[in-house]
């Protein structure tokens, strides 16, 4: 512990020294950080541990929903092998849809968000604060109600159909072909503002001197954007995209209220396939196995992004 600190080059700070003198021992000072973590730890890990273990446990069972636990049979890895190997398994279909859904949403939100944030960052914008505040609103709305709202608008006699009709478009959103674009569009509508706000904050944080210096050196607007603003924004872009990606991977609400995974299985992303395995196929084991797969997928993405954040932060610190 002691040598670790010296290696960090910071040594003891005053507070540490004082506490050490006051309490008169190393032991209390050493366990204090852990004692402070205890309440939070108990109510997160403590609450989640048993259900998580149950999730793993159930994934090895052959157990029908609605029947007593005593009817459950140990099934080994069969739920997993069925999901990965059976021709009637929708796992890969769901994975593909999930990646499509989250990938397209994040990329589109990032693109539009960056463009609008750059526009907002012009020298003089009338009512900039009001605009920023306004952009907050869609991100705050209850996803279930957002799904319901768009469901009403996308009916053939709904508001969206009317306005699309004005420009000569006639789309039946309730077909296998258009259901996925519909939910992606709703996601983009609701969460592009999240990117706008956070990227705008990032743009604001770029010191004026750097951009001015580049301008004096003769860099064009596009070059300044691409070679100064974007690298500077990179950590914010990654963090925002990470948060969004994780929301999207586990998303359920909007797709559930819009289509409940249908028509057919056109919008059956992973969250929905967990739901469907449980309530339509009434198979607790397979549903739990899908849950494990989703949890692992989420963890992998989180881990990659966390590594990336640490790396980009180190790179930033080195370059400063």
């Amino acid at each position: 512990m002691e040598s670790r600190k010296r290696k960090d080059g910071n040594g003891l700070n005053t507070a540490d020294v004082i506490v050490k003198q006051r309490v008169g021992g190393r032991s209390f000072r050493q366990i204090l950080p852990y004692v402070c973590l205890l309440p939070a730890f108990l109510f997160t890990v403590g609450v989640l541990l048993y259900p998580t273990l149950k999730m793993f446990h159930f994934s090895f069972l052959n157990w029908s929903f609605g029947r007593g636990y005593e009817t459950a049979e140990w099934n080994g890895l069969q739920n997993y092998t069925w999901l990965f190997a059976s021709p009637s398994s929708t796992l890969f279909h769901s994975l593909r849809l999930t990646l499509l859904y989250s990938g397209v949403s994040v990329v589109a939100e990032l693109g539009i968000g960056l463009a609008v944030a750059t526009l907002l960052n012009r020298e003089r914008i009338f009512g900039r604060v009001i605009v920023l505040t306004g952009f907050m609103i869609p991100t705050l709305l209850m996803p279930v109600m957002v799904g319901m709202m768009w469901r009403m608008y996308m009916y053939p006699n709904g508001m969206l159909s009317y306005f699309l009709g004005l420009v000569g478009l006639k789309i039946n959103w309730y077909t296998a072909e258009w259901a996925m674009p519909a939910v992606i569009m709703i996601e983009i509508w609701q969460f592009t503002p999240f990117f706008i706000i956070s990227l705008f904050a990032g743009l604001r944080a770029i010191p004026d001197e750097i951009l001015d210096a580049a301008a004096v050196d003769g860099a064009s607007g596009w070059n300044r954007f691409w070679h100064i603003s974007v690298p500077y924004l990179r950590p914010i872009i990654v963090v925002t995209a990470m948060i969004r990606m994780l929301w999207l991977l586990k998303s359920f609400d909007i797709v559930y209220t819009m289509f409940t995974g249908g028509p057919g299985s056109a919008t059956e992303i992973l969250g929905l396939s967990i739901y469907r395995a449980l309530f339509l196929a009434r198979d607790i084991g397979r549903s739990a196995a899908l849950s494990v797969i989703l949890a692992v997928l989420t963890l992998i993405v989180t881990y990659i992004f966390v590594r990336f954040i640490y790396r980009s932060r180190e790179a930033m610190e080195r370059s400063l």
Partner: protein
Amino acid sequence: MGRRLQYFSSNRTLLQWHRRLDSIVASLAVWIILILFLAPYLYLIVWSFKRPGDIQAYPPRFLSPLTVENYSQIFADVNIAFFLKNSAIVAGVTTVLSLLLAISAAYSFARFRFLGKDWLAYLFIAIMVAPLISLVYPFLVVANQIGLTDTHMGLVLFYLPWNIPFAVWMLRTFVSDVPQELEDSALVDGCTRMGAFARITAPLLIPGFFTTGVFIFIGAWNEFVIAFFLTSTKARTLPTTIDFFLTYGSFQFAPMFAAGVVSTLPIVACGLLVRRYYLTGTTAGALKG
């Protein structure tokens, strides 16, 4: 217009005119984009005041008379006040408990160096992002075992694991922003560490508590999956009431519009309350990790 002409006539440089034009065009573009983004929600609000017959009219009747009939219907027939109350209780208790249980951990992460700190931070992040839908059925089983199905406490208990890590993550940055020297000087003056925290740091953290709290409240208010599976009548919250309007093919538009407004407007108001911190909260909270 007059002022612009004046600029021209007083023979200002072309650059200045160019800047002015740039700001007008950019402002106009930004406002149009904003209005496009807000239009669906504004439409929901306006149409919730239209008579049931006008709501589904095609093409839309933009100038039909307004009424509060839909609102009185959801308060009388569906008793939405009951669900509003449930939502408020669950979200409020979740917020307060999350903050209380998270603050010491946030302090620990912000102020101490200890073995395994990075890994514990990872653990909290991993928990914060764990997919709800994966754990819903085990939750249902556990809640049945300990008799917490369809109770406010049951919902709160299962909301905590997601909100505490978020609160730790947010509050940590707020604690870091309070200069260590302030606490150190209190320690020198003879305060205990606890006393220094209570007297010096805690009052400075009030904006942090408030901001974090509002975000937690919004999240808990909007939460659908757990509420949908764990409640049936007594503790049912707002998001799960959409079922009422979705009964077997007959989709009731008019009360749906009103319910949509009732369930979202309080949250929009909450969000506007922390407008200033939405930026600092999301970006600082995310970046410093």
